[in-house]
């Protein structure tokens, strides 16, 4: 029986996801993965979720947002506050849902006025909006002010993060390949021309922005439930910039690149732990050098695709 290349590629991706899970689980059972490495893996997973969402906004919709950490904070605080009274896995997923909805509402409120701006102006406006969110959290009673929340129940294991990472990436990639994704990319290439073709540019820009905010909230919820401690300062401008660095380093507009960069940066960070104080010096030098010698990011806009691999094979077998 012959499958089309699309079915084959979908099966291949499913295989990759399941085998990734099985491998990590096996290493976990065999005690190869100590808590230190597990922490690194979970950080990679959360960073992937955050960066995939930001890559959708920056790389595919072409809107330069510098406020990702603000939406992450909403998700994190929703989980931190709600799971204190509902300390069950169901409570966690409920809080994540609430965080996503709140983040989406905030994204609509922020996005409708600011998405009229372009380029760096949009970046500064979204950065300002994220800072306003952070300062509000810093001064509210329910969020426990600048001290933040601690003793958040540990409702998240690496497996939850892994599954949610796969789900978010799948949904994002499917959005990119859908009619909406093409509309969003048309807006990125030329807003005027896209508008002339009948695409409602404001609506699709906002859609990508809100979508990205929802994924940021998922990342924030996972962060809160895994690390168990959150404070407003975890979600400052530097946190937004850290996510931006993953996106640009991997290649703007490449989801594969986002994965590679999230892994490379986390491993680099873990390795550099041994270097003590000069850790950040090496990190910043590495960042500058990669950007100078590889200005398009590690992978540019190249995307790994099983579909392409299979269809190429089909073409060669027909010949």
């Amino acid at each position: 029986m012959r499958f089309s290349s699309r079915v084959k590629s979908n099966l291949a991706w499913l295989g990759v996801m399941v085998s990734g899970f099985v491998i990590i689980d096996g290493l976990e059972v065999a005690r190869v993965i100590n808590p230190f490495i597990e922490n690194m893996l979970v950080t990679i997973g959360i960073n992937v979720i955050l960066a995939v969402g930001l890559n959708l906004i920056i790389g595919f919709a072409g809107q330069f947002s510098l406020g990702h950490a603000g939406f992450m904070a909403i998700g994190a605080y929703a989980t931190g506050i709600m799971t204190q009274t509902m300390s069950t896995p169901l409570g966690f997923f409920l809080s994540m849902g609430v965080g996503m909805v709140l983040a989406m509402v905030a994204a609509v409120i922020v996005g409708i006025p600011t998405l009229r701006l372009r380029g760096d102006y949009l970046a500064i406006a979204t950065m300002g909006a994220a800072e306003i969110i952070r300062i509000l959290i810093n001064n509210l009673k329910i969020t426990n002010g600048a001290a933040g929340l601690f003793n958040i129940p540990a409702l998240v294991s690496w497996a939850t993060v892994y599954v949610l990472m796969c789900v978010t990436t799948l949904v994002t990639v499917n959005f990119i390949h859908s009619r909406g994704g093409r509309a969003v990319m048309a807006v990125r290439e030329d807003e005027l021309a896209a508008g002339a073709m009948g695409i409602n540019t404001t609506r699709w820009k906002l859609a990508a922005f809100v979508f990205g905010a929802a994924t940021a909230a998922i990342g924030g919820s996972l962060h809160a439930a895994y690390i168990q401690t959150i404070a407003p300062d975890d979600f400052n401008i530097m946190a937004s910039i850290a996510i931006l660095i993953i996106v640009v380093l991997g290649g703007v507009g490449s989801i594969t690149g986002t994965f590679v960069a999230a892994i490379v940066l986390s491993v680099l960070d873990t390795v550099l732990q041994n270097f003590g104080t000069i850790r950040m010096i090496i990190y910043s030098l590495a960042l500058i050098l990669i950007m100078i010698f590889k200005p398009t990011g590690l992978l540019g806009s190249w995307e790994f695709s099983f579909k392409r691999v299979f269809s190429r094979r089909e073409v060669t077998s027909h010949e």
Partner: protein
Amino acid sequence: MQTFGQQLINGLSLGSIYALLALGYTMVYGIIKLINFAHGDIYMLGAFWGYYSINYFHFNFWLALFSAMVVCAIIGVVIEYFAYRPLRHSARITALITAIGVSFLLENGMSYLVGANARSFPQAIRVVTYHWLGLRVSNIQLLILGTACALMILLELIIKRTKMGKAMRAVSVDPEAAQLVGINLNQTISFTFALGSAMAGAAGVLIGLYYNSIDPLMGMTPGIKAFVAAVIGGIGSVPGASLGGFIIGLLETAVQAVGLSAYKDAVVYFVLIVILLVLPAGIFGKRTREKV
């Protein structure tokens, strides 16, 4: 009325620091469309140069100020040469990440070299407080305001009256056409970085004298606020950056004066968003008509 006058003076001295920093942002952005994230850290380096030159070389205040400007100008040119020049033709977001990398490098490099602790800035000038109509004005505040205004006028003259200033304006309008009429692009951009960094260095020494405390991370928040000031004033416009700096300084002081100091940054960002929505190119920014 008295508190109002007092806050006005405090706001103006803080605002003039932001204005000096915002000038560097606005010139660099105007000429190569880069948000120079490392600008705030050059201001930090200026403050540290002032600290060491006064403590160890026994410079007086004016010599420290002038030498800090020269040193920062050189650092600015070096940074541009090594980090930004190779990326001039790549995507702007790449240059932005490089600027963030340079900022991290300067912050962590200084933390490594001199330690991350805050240190007190030497009192190069004895503080004298004048009482006038019930207002308290220190000579330091007057000095900051005077020096900042003098530097801004000097900068305006350089840009409007000299040949190099004309070249800068030409490059910011159209780099290729500027090259066609014989302007050396690299030289002009280097000169812009030198000017902007010199202003930041001066601001660093002045803030050291005013707040009396410096540390390697001191440039981060003022840097971002100064960029906000440049955007409010209309990026690329020198009078706009000065006005934006004063607006931010006065706004922050006013919010603090009514007892909402916890929200002072939020108010600044809120005003930024509102101004951008009403005037998308800032107060003095040029409106560009979109071409199809």
